[in-house]
């Protein structure tokens, strides 16, 4: 009897652990508390959620150098930072691609790209891929909009920047801007997720 109880307890713990692992595999859903990070940026400094000052949240964008969709959005990422950083929502772009698999996404190449485009936002390197694995992004560009509440960062929106990568003037649904505007007005974000075609993450082998 005792053996049976030990066995069931053992099996139950396996079940618990595996469901936790599975949940982690999928990454965050809207409402989750986002993990903090401390990453090196292209200007040699570190960027972390805890280190942000006078902010209400953060616009975390999983990005890279080489993806044509990212390239199509770089100017819009600059605009978003310039528009929302003063209101408390800075953009933090994170490149998680493995430089062996995708040499164009090396730290040197990131520095070069940031200089060419004069990025006003932090462009950070997630070399260990720990941050992207925890967040659960699967493509670039992919946005996690975080709202700060009692020193915690809550995920409020996951998805695309808007619904037309080709032409900013033809966008009919600026998903991210709408979500940030809603948070700034103290309202609930209406569209909490969106999908877009994007470049796969170049995972370390």
């Amino acid at each position, binding site marked *: 009897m005792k053996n049976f109880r030990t066995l069931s307890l053992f099996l139950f713990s396996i079940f618990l652990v595996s469901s936790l692992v599975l949940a982690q595999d999928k990454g965050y859903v809207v409402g989750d508390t986002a993990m903090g990070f401390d990453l090196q940026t292209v200007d040699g400094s570190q960027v972390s959620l805890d280190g942000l000052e006078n902010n209400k949240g953060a616009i975390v964008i999983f990005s890279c150098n080489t993806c*044509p969709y990212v390239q199509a959005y770089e100017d819009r990422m600059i605009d978003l930072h310039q528009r929302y950083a003063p209101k408390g929502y800075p953009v933090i772009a994170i490149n998680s691609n493995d430089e062996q698999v995708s040499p164009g996404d090396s730290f040197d190449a990131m520095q070069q790209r940031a200089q060419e485009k004069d990025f006003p936002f932090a462009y950070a390197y997630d070399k260990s891929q720990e941050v992207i694995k925890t967040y659960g992004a*699967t*493509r670039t560009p992919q946005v996690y909009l975080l709202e700060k509440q009692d020193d915690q960062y809550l995920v409020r929106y996951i998805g695309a920047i808007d*619904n037309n990568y080709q032409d900013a003037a033809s966008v009919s649904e600026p998903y991210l801007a709408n979500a940030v505007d809603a948070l700034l007005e103290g309202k609930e974000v209406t569209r909490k997720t*969106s*999908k877009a075609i994007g470049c796969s993450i170049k995972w370390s082998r």
Partner: protein
Amino acid sequence: MIASLSRLLFVLFLITLPGFSGKDRPEPDFKIISFEEFERLTAKESEKLRIFNFWATWCAPCVREMPYFDHANKSNTDMELYFISMDDARRPERVSSFIEKRDIQSPVYLLNDVDFNSWIDKVNPDWTGAIPATLFVKADGSRHFHEGEMEEPELLKLIDQLK
């Protein structure tokens, strides 16, 4: 009248010749399609396993797996392959020159609808939007979806299972 009718019949006869259909076609099809056209294509009745591979000319993992798909299509008479390009429809020449350079034998359709969120879930709710991704439609109409790059043995095994 009779002459033009017999000419029409002759053309119809030509079209039904083996050389005009299926895998004997020397040149692959390339055209730009809407999402509605894509949906009609996937919903079409067929006795074959149909495979829709989402890719783009600039996508390295997509380009790596393409030959596996193209070869499988050549050696399997009971499957039909379509490469669905996510390239920019304003520059179709990038795709057509790629087809020529890489000698792609299967039809390539460029899906021109950048309002991605409006249709990704209709292809498959499990698709996060990353490419490469592949939709398999079995003869009975049921679907299997795979996101991510595939190695050749993995693909061939899956084709065998789904056929």
